[in-house]
């Protein structure tokens, strides 16, 4: 290839580069600018230190707690599932992807609606409990309902990367381990588990980040009673109209997202979330 032609090919990404600058970099600079200024435009760190206010701190801690819980549940559900699916030796892997992606094609709001129906006080779950002679449980508008909804929403993002990393393990590697004397448990601990770490890490990132930053699920399934950091930020922007405060808290949230990803990446080889697809 001659130099002139190479130049032309790189030029093809020109529109996208302009797009990155205009609609990815610039907006982030805007948020940084709003975050460190007050309504009159002068420099302040108050919007960022506002995270230490009890109401904000409480929301952040609750977000972290629910996101961790959701991630843990997803991991516990998804890992055995991926093992079972892998053991089925499906000829067409796309079938698995299909089964778990299909619910994702339902609009998020309608999936939430379904859980509202199931969990509400006179909903299906409580009707079943009552007909069995058991006491009703208050689930809707509690943290549990929010975790339920998050797990339902994000479970596929945990299953797919783990399943992918598992299906990449050659059967001859498993055979070799058995041949060298490893029993089923040893094969799992020494071969399968270490070789799926990268998938687990992708899954954790892909579940933890949206769970930490979610505000819709907590809004609709928590009934306004479960206040996450996402809800606080949303209210600053849409109700209190304090964009500087909202931006400052967003910066804090971004720091947490970046920190959690860095933390996970230190504990595993590089495999971005996009590798899942």
């Amino acid at each position, binding site marked *: 290839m001659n130099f002139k032609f190479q130049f032309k090919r790189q030029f093809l990404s020109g529109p*996208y580069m302009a797009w990155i600058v205009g609609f990815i970099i610039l*907006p982030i600079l805007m*948020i940084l600018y709003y975050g460190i200024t007050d309504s009159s435009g002068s420099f302040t760190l108050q919007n960022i230190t506002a995270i230490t206010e009890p109401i904000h701190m409480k929301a952040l801690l609750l977000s972290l707690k629910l996101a961790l819980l959701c991630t843990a549940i997803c991991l516990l559900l998804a890992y055995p599932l991926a093992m079972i699916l892998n053991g089925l030796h499906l000829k067409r892997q796309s079938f698995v992807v299909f089964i778990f992606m299909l619910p994702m*094609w*339902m609009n998020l*709001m*309608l999936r939430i609606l379904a859980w509202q129906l199931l969990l509400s006080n006179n909903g299906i779950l409580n009707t079943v409990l009552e007909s069995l002679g058991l006491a009703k449980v208050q689930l809707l508008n509690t943290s549990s309902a929010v975790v339920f909804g998050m797990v339902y929403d994000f479970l596929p993002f945990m299953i797919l990367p783990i399943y992918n990393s598992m299906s990449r393990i050659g059967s001859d590697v498993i055979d070799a381990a058995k041949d060298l004397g490893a029993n089923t448990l040893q094969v799992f601990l020494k071969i399968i588990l270490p070789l799926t770490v990268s998938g687990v890490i992708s899954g954790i990132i892909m579940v933890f980040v949206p769970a930490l*930053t979610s505000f*819709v699920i907590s809004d609709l399934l928590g009934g306004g009673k479960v206040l996450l950091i996402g809800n606080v*930020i949303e209210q600053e922007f849409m109700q209190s109209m304090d964009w500087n405060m909202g931006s400052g808290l967003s910066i804090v949230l971004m720091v947490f997202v970046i920190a959690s990803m860095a933390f996970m990446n230190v504990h595993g080889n590089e495999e971005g979330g996009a590798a899942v697809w």
Partner: protein
Amino acid sequence: MVKKIGSRIYLSVIFLFLYFPILVLIVLSFNDSKSRVAWGGFTGKWYISMFQDTAIMRAFATTIQITLVASVLATIIGTLAAIGIQAMRRRGKAILLGATNIPLLNADIVTGISMMLLFVRFTKLGFMTVLIAHLTFDIPYVILNVLPRLNATSKSAYEAALDLGATPLYAFYKIVWPDIRPGVFSGFLMAVTMSLDDFSITYFTKGAGVNTLSTMLYTELRKGIRPEMYSLSTLLFGIALLLLLLINFRSARKNDINN
């Protein structure tokens, strides 16, 4: 044997967890009673009132418009960008791919807010701003689907075509394009999926008057549940099922031919 039965049960439980809520919506969409638990006989009236509901239909139309326009444009810009990125040196590649990952990894709420801050400063929120926002998170999916295909494409075949007298454009169309087409297609599909399902980013960039299904439903759900939403769910699920079956069937047939 016990293990096999155990794993079957486990699979069924997860399957039920994923599909039972959807099943409930489908059943309720045909329920004549407004009750959420009692069956009041079969009816199609919720479908009729759904189609007569202008708010739902308008949001539906807007969703389709945004999704299609954003996905098609994102596919074009993203594919071109992928070709350009592939030709770049290591450093430029790393920087661009890093930037590409930002909208994927950043929290949706932050992406939405940051774009809103930009838009309100320079223009008014509306259909165009939603479109731009959708393009911004759609393009990365296209790039990440096309780039691996592009890397797997044999460079020597392309060079051989040039050697045999093909123009770069002709060589691209005849040699590279057939190889990356599946990636372009799956990138387009991902873009459609993401656009259809997006709520957070649309919510912050839409302004008053514009509503996609997600934002319309959000407002409605905060007010209360209407039975028309069940029929909307059933309809959307049916469309998704049909589309995915079609795509799967298509790719399966292609695999069979290739084998």
